[in-house]
């Protein structure tokens, strides 16, 4: 059986102010996976990834990258890793091309190999025209793409993306998704993604772990997680103002405003009854959509459940 791309056992982190950021987490990310690590702010996502890429010292536990223990051969483990952090962490006064080439140098890649690789990456990410610009001149989205190019220059087997699309407009975000999908599927790069856009995780990732208060509260496949949803909520736009909300046996139908109804349906329930009743009452439905992202609902419910157990937000 091949070694997982990332294997974490009993990982703990206590910061100097005695904040217990991680409480002995276990996690496996298979090779080739596109893996989402989700959690609210301060849950422990960045601490976990920081330990993996040596930006944070662990308190206890074991981390292996493709079977290499970071305590015994961190240099080899780090060679497999590419990191795109949450915050911009390059010299803002350096040129785009130099930032990528310098990173290649840190990995011991000769310039004659690094230059064509850097060019390819910058072209793929739409930054080649900006190669001679100082990094500070780039827009937020371009800076994020620069960090992706820099992280890929040594062709890592495991790419860690910590909120790579934060503050990026929708069109650009989708083109970045396509790029990430491509390197995962065509080049076999294992990707670990943290994001606050749950739509992003749902669209890209095959497996998911949810972390809260330093503990993994869910670790499963995206498909399995989504099947756990037992209720879906729809918004119905109606043609004429609603005066009274009709009652439908076993279905929750509420009025949002004059032109909208909200419909909550349990898994397996038929929608036909709703539309029959609405037609009978003279209410014409002109459009229908999901109220919110399905994963978002589940995420909120999981995190909320755990907060209720542990006594609320700390």
């Amino acid at each position, binding site marked *: 059986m091949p070694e997982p791309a990332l294997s974490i056992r009993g990982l703990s982190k206590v910061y100097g102010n005695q904040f217990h950021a991680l409480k002995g987490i276990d996690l496996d990310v298979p090779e080739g996976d596109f893996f989402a690590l989700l959690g609210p702010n301060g849950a422990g996502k960045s601490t976990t990834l*920081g330990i993996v890429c040596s930006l944070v010292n662990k308190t206890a536990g074991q981390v292996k990258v493709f079977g290499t223990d970071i305590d015994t051969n961190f240099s080899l483990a780090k060679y497999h890793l590419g*990191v795109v952090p949450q915050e911009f962490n390059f010299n803002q006064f350096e040129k785009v091309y130099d930032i990528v080439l310098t990173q290649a140098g840190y990995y*011991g890649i000769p310039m004659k190999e690094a230059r064509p690789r850097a060019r390819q990456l910058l072209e793929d990410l739409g930054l080649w025209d900006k190669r001679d610009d100082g990094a500070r001149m780039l827009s937020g989205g371009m800076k994020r793409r620069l960090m992706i190019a820099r992280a890929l220059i040594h062709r890592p087997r495991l790419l860690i993306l910590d909120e790579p699309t934060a503050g990026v407009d929708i069109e650009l975000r989708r083109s970045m998704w396509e790029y990430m999908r491509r390197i995962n599927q065509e080049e076999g790069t294992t990707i670990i993604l943290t994001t606050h856009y749950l739509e992003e995780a749902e669209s890209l990732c095959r497996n998911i772990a949810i972390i809260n208060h330093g503990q993994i509260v869910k670790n499963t496949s995206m498909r399995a997680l989504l099947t756990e949803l037992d209720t879906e909520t729809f918004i119905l736009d109606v043609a004429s103002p609603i005066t009274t909300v009709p009652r439908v046996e076993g279905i929750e139908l509420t009025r949002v405003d004059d032109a909208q109804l909200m419909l909550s349906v349990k898994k397996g329930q038929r929608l036909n009854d709703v539309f029959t009743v609405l037609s009978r009452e003279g209410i014409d439905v002109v459009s229908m959509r999901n109220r919110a992202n399905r994963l978002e609902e589940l995420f909120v419910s999981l995190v909320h459940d755990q907060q209720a157990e542990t006594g609320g937000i700390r």
Partner: protein
Amino acid sequence: MSQRQLLIALWTIVTKEVRRFMRIWPQTLLPPSITMTMYFIIFGNLIGQRVGEMDGVPYIDYIVPGLIMMSVITNSYSNVASSFFSNKFQRSVEEMVVSPMPDWIILLGFVIGGVARGLAVGAIVTAVSLFFTDVQVHHPLLTVLVVVLTAVLFSIGGFINSLLAKKFDDISIVPIFVLTPLTYLGGVFYSIHMLPDFWQMVSMINPILYMVNTFRYGILGVSDISAGGAMVAIVAFIVVLYALALWLLKRGQGIRS
């Protein structure tokens, strides 16, 4: 990493560091040459003519080695301190931390960068001094050795300072309140034999006195102290500070949570 990869990584840091201080030469190379020209004109030419000789050599010749060494010390120190702290401040130090480079390559790269600037400024000040004096080098090998080792020592010192610094003020405290007084009191402008016995003894605990005097011995052939003992002390300081810097890097002082 293989030997070749290590060399490439080291070369990357060194060239980046040299490019940095060359790019901002009006801030790094120009000021010391102007300051030292002032010293040569005021202390060497104007006041020096009234002082006459010091330890048997004209006063302007006497202060040349001290002024060169002062430039090397302050520039090698501040180059590493400010460059590495800027990397910390902008978080670009993370580029190095996440890479497979061993800590000693990072340290060595910055130290070589600091030595390069220290020697570049030293060379400029030496060139300026030739407009005012025609000093001959008595012991070329010792002269080169002591200036390089001093630059290494203070580059490591600057590195440690930047690791411990939390804000920009912290990297200027040591140069202003420690290095400058020790350099001025380290026999740059006078022989310690001019001091009362008590202050001569106090001066002997100033490490910069040994470096300045050994360098002066290399150039002029005159010194207040033994050159051999000074070289041993400099090497010992380098070993101790290098070990300290590596230990701080390994535990992630100031760069890891």
